[in-house]
């Protein structure tokens, strides 16, 4: 029981600063940045946007917990998916801290460092490009009711999860939504008459509570997993490439370790093949228990499934094939 409570406490305390930072940045975007300003700042072309998203983590490093609320806000503000989603998936890995941690954990093994960056970039690019055509707000679970969307008079009908977003029946509906959601965030916080600083604080509180509940659920699951699984249970899988890669990916999913620390844990599984360790460090920052809960809450079901299944399939395939070639 002590291990469970300690693990849950540790996971929460470790992730809380980054979640809070994400909530704070998201709130600053919401309160201080007008809708069109951010859109204008973004690169126009898809390829350029993709590269921008991949490289943004080098300048705005965030962990996987903190990046989700930021990206939710970016998408609401109209930032294209090839920028926002690519940033969300790649920033936890393609940033100076994680790259350095990977280098140290694997004792200067550049193949592991480059493999991690390359595989994460590949997953992020695939998803970014695949979803590039969709209106950013429509990726979000609450996108259909977003006042930003209504104000912009979004015309095209993009059925995502079977929802047609232009079903605003009369002016009264639009007015009601706009009034209820105050400054447009939809979280119910901050009356517009408050000063901007107070708005940011209230918004941050609401965003932290909103995302924090998924972090807690993830942390509880991680704690449970930690007390149930002993290392020797993994022994039968380490000699089969087919199973080793899968097991390490499952482990990355359930352990939900922060991207900046997971390389050290992966390196400790020295009996597993290198490609299995690679699959561990590439999947974890994109898909784990905490993130699945957050994806499910933020994105529409199909988008959330895409964010989960594409990395799982791609990482498994590449790791397995690379393992076969190395053998």
């Amino acid at each position, binding site marked *: *029981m*002590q*291990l469970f*409570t*300690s*693990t*849950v*406490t*540790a*996971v*929460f*305390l*470790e992730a*809380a*600063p980054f979640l*809070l930072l994400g909530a*704070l940045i998201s709130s600053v975007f919401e309160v201080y940045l007008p809708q069109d300003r951010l859109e204008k700042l973004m690169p126009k072309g898809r390829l350029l946007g993709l590269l921008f998203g991949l490289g943004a983590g080098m300048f705005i490093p965030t962990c996987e917990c903190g990046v989700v609320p930021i990206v939710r806000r970016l998408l609401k503000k109209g930032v294209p998916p090839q920028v926002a989603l690519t940033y969300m998936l790649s920033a936890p890995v393609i940033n100076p801290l994680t790259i350095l*941690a990977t280098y140290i954990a694997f*004792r200067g093994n550049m193949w592991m460092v480059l493999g991690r960056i390359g595989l994460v970039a590949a997953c992020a690019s695939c998803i970014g490009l695949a979803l590039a055509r969709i209106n950013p707000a429509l990726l979000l679970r609450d996108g259909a009711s977003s006042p930003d969307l209504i104000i912009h008079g979004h015309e095209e009908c993009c059925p995502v999860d079977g929802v047609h977003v232009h079903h605003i029946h009369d002016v009264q509906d639009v007015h009601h939504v706009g009034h209820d959601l105050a400054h447009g965030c939809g*979280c*119910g*916080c*901050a*009356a517009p008459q*408050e000063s901007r600083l*107070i708005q940011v*604080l*209230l918004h*941050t*509180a*609401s965003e*932290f*509570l*909103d995302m*924090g*509940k998924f972090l*807690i*659920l993830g*942390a*509880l699951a*991680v*704690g449970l997993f*930690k007390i149930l*699984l*002993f*290392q*020797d249970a993994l*022994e039968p899988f380490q000699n089969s490439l087919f199973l080793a890669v899968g097991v390490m990916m499952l482990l990355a999913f359930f*352990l*939900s*370790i*922060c991207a*900046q*620390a*997971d390389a*050290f*844990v992966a390196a*400790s*599984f*020295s009996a597993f093949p290198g490609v299995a360790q690679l699959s561990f460090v590439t999947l974890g920052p994109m898909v784990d228990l905490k993130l699945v809960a957050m994806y499910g809450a933020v994105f529409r079901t199909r988008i959330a499934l895409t964010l989960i299944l594409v990395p799982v399939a791609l990482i498994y395939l590449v790791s397995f094939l690379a393992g076969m070639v190395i053998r």
Partner: protein
Amino acid sequence: MKKVAGIIEGLILLVIGAYAVLLILSGNYWRFLNPKFTWLTAVTAIVLMLIGITAALKPNNKPSLARISIFLVLLIVLLSGHLGITAHKQIASKPPVGKPLSGQLSGQPPPQSKPPVEEDPFAGILPQKLPPQSPADQAPRVIMDGQEYVRINLAELYILFKSPQPGKLEQRYVVRGIVHRSKRLDRLQQFALLRNVVFCCLADSFGAGFRVQSDRLDKFADGQWLEVYGTLKRSAHQLPDPHLHIEDMRYYDLNESYVLVPSKIIPISEPDEPYIFECRTSEPFAY
């Protein structure tokens, strides 16, 4: 009702922030996270309290019972964790169970009859519980029985011997760790000496260590803290999966190629900070 729920949401944030501050002040922070992140948690705690107060004074008009419930579960877990620490402290304050041993015959064929345990020259001189020492206070090397030993922690030694440089094998080392035994290791007259390494938080911790050769396994019990002086030699045996079931160390990595051959073993109490938080690659090591 909505207003009350909104106020509760603010108060929850305030309480979490206050908990983090108290955790830092209580000196128990290291039990969950690497102390190098203390400043980060402190800043987070202050911001959480600030937004908590603001949210309580200007309650959200869309409070959620679901998130209140989940955050209340978190508060219960935080409280349980705190109570667990208090209980652990009481257990850990008990004196060590083992007796000091010296002149180990490890690495030699097992004797037909067990020799009597030698009197340890440091028994009665070394305190039962080593006084707290910060790495900066310690000399990088120590003289024991006329021999010089490099102070190093198990994770540093583990990293050093992943790809050992020439000259490292001749060096004598002193390390501290916890004994873990299993039938498979017993058959080789070895036990595992491990120590938890925490890079960020407890969730990413794992045990790093070496096998220690000893023909007096009966003197060592699971969970016992030891200070081991000795040298490393290439293992004659392939490392079997040791099948260790360690309650608070679910993942561990024993060096496969090298075994610690002790010249002296001293049972010690649990150090004030039993985890390894820092790994250096050259002297002075963090120990």
